[in-house]
């Protein structure tokens, strides 16, 4: 005989401890199965786009730090690329390399968090996350050396970076580059072929490439769905055309692949950093631009980067004033969240948070 069950609506968040930030989702369960998903956004809305309209072009750099606070450097980079397009200038080569290098360091830090939280949501409370944090701490220390802050870096400026790396940065970076592969290999030994992890994530919540492309999903989520699409390859910005790297692509489209793609991207980031360190030449790091920039009226530009979570774009419109007329932010986390229904429907309660973790959202960026 079958037990008759009634659908039950459960509210997760906005401050549920295992969600990523203040994310709220209303889920209707039939027994343990998810039948309806309704995400509710906006709990961290700070009006970044509106704030940007009344700040000048350099001041907005400080706002971009706070979008995706686990990858501030990449946010800086996206915004600065947009402003440079708007002005029609190009930063000096050394600045390009410094940007690429710091962006890749930040990508490693962000992926370590993503992987750590993904595993934590499977029930590995703390340990792999803390291994990730241990390595991330080294990266944040490098950032503190570079620009005096760990999270809210504000390192880049339109036309380059604010200052050259200090002397002690390069030996410290070398120490990090020699230590980190060992630390990361330990994480890989713990996680990558772990049966428990594979049983829980293999084949769970697959995202077919058609749906991924139709929903404008980007970043590791798209690549895990088998689509070879990386803006660093498609449209190289900064120094990415001078470095070699591979784009890992998933074959099974599932939660495990999303986790695996991130683990592989850390290796590729390390490759890029090593090449940057080998190729970087002395020279100026910032263009001679005035502190208060005034792009010509009517110009508009869209600057995009491959952020750690996907395509991050800034669309700027200038009216000739010191502040942009409009600043639209295309944040990868928000767009990636739109497939959450596809990922969750028909799956069990225990897989819900795991799938959410595999998308790797950041609420600072979703709500802006």
């Amino acid at each position, binding site marked *: 005989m079958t037990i008759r069950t009634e659908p039950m609506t459960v509210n997760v968040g906005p401050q549920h401890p295992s969600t990523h930030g203040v994310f709220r989702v209303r889920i209707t369960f039939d027994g343990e199965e998810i039948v309806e998903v309704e995400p509710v956004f906006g709990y961290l809305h700070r009006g970044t786009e509106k704030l940007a309209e009344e700040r000048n072009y350099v001041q907005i750099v400080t706002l971009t730090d706070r979008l995706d606070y686990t990858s501030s450097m990449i946010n800086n980079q996206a915004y600065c690329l947009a402003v440079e397009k708007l002005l*029609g200038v190009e930063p000096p080569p050394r600045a390009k390399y410094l940007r690429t290098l710091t962006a890749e360091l930040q990508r490693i830090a962000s992926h370590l968090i993503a992987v750590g939280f993904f595993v934590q949501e499977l029930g590995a409370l703390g340990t792999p996350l803390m291994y990730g944090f241990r390595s991330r701490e080294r990266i944040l220390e490098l950032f503190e050396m570079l620009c005096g802050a760990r999270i809210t870096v504000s390192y880049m400026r339109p036309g380059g970076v604010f200052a050259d790396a*200090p002397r002690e940065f390069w*030996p410290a970076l070398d120490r990090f580059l020699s230590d980190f592969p060992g630390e990361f290999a330990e994480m890989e030994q713990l996680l990558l072929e*772990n049966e428990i992890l594979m049983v829980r994530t293999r084949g769970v919540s697959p995202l077919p490439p058609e749906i991924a492309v139709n929903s404008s999903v980007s970043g590791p989520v798209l690549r895990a769905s088998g689509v070879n699409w990386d803006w660093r390859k498609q449209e190289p910005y900064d120094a990415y055309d001078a470095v070699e790297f591979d784009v890992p692509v998933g074959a099974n489209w599932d939660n495990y692949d999303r986790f695996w793609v991130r683990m592989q991207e850390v290796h590729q980031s390390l490759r890029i950093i090593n090449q940057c360190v080998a190729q970087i030449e*002395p020279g100026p790091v910032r263009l001679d631009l*005035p502190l208060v920039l005034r792009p010509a009226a009517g110009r508009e530009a869209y600057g995009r980067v491959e952020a750690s979570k996907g395509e991050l774009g800034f669309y700027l419109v200038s009216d000739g004033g010191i502040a942009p007329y409009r600043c639209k932010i295309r944040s990868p986390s928000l767009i990636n969240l739109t497939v959450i229904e596809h990922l969750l429907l028909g799956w069990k309660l225990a897989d819900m948070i795991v799938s959410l973790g595999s998308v790797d959202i950041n609420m600072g960026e979703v709500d802006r």
Partner: protein
Amino acid sequence: MYGLAMVKGLLVTLKNLTRKPFTIQYPEERAEQHPRFRGEEFVWYEERCTGCASCAKYCPLGIIKIVTSPSETALPQGDKYRLEVFDIELQRCMFCGLCVEACPYDALFMGSGFEQGQYSRQDMVITIDQLRQAEKHPSTWFRPQLEGYAGEPGESRRQPAATEGESRLTYNPRGGPPLGWREVGRESWRWHRREKAGMRLETGPTAPQQTPATGAGGETAGEVPGKDDTIDDMTAGKP
């Protein structure tokens, strides 16, 4: 076959059992603080400040309040305003350091502290008297002269990792004695950028193609020739 995963996991655990903890016990031990760290206790040198309020204009949050009145004394290099109010609302400050970047006279530095908890919001406002009396431990954020750069841009390029002495921090904001305004030095304008706050884009051989593309400050370009020399004269007096 769950056993193998368990064994592999435990091997990592065993490795970490024998290691030194990565964390430090904060109030007793302290992490190494880097000289560029942007912290509280803004360092302000009244002798250099002209009251131009560039910092207040450039602050993204508008938390710096400056009230000035014209002074009667005429200094050799030019007049300056007398400052009456210089309030920094620290509770809203996000320590981006743009005020320091905007200061054309190297009068404002970021501090290097991070332990200034207060019980009320009013106490979080740094007043001009506090700024005058505070111990000056400036950060090297945007002040490369404190980092001891050799001079030309790109001079601080990649160092070989073998030299042990180079990896040591050259300037420790918390360690040394407080620095007076004569000690902190002036940023040489040849190091970084020729113009700072209030100055417009200069059309020179260094930046040939920018002015037509940007349309930025084209109308006042070329207004400031020879400004560099004046500033270097001002720095000549430093020890």
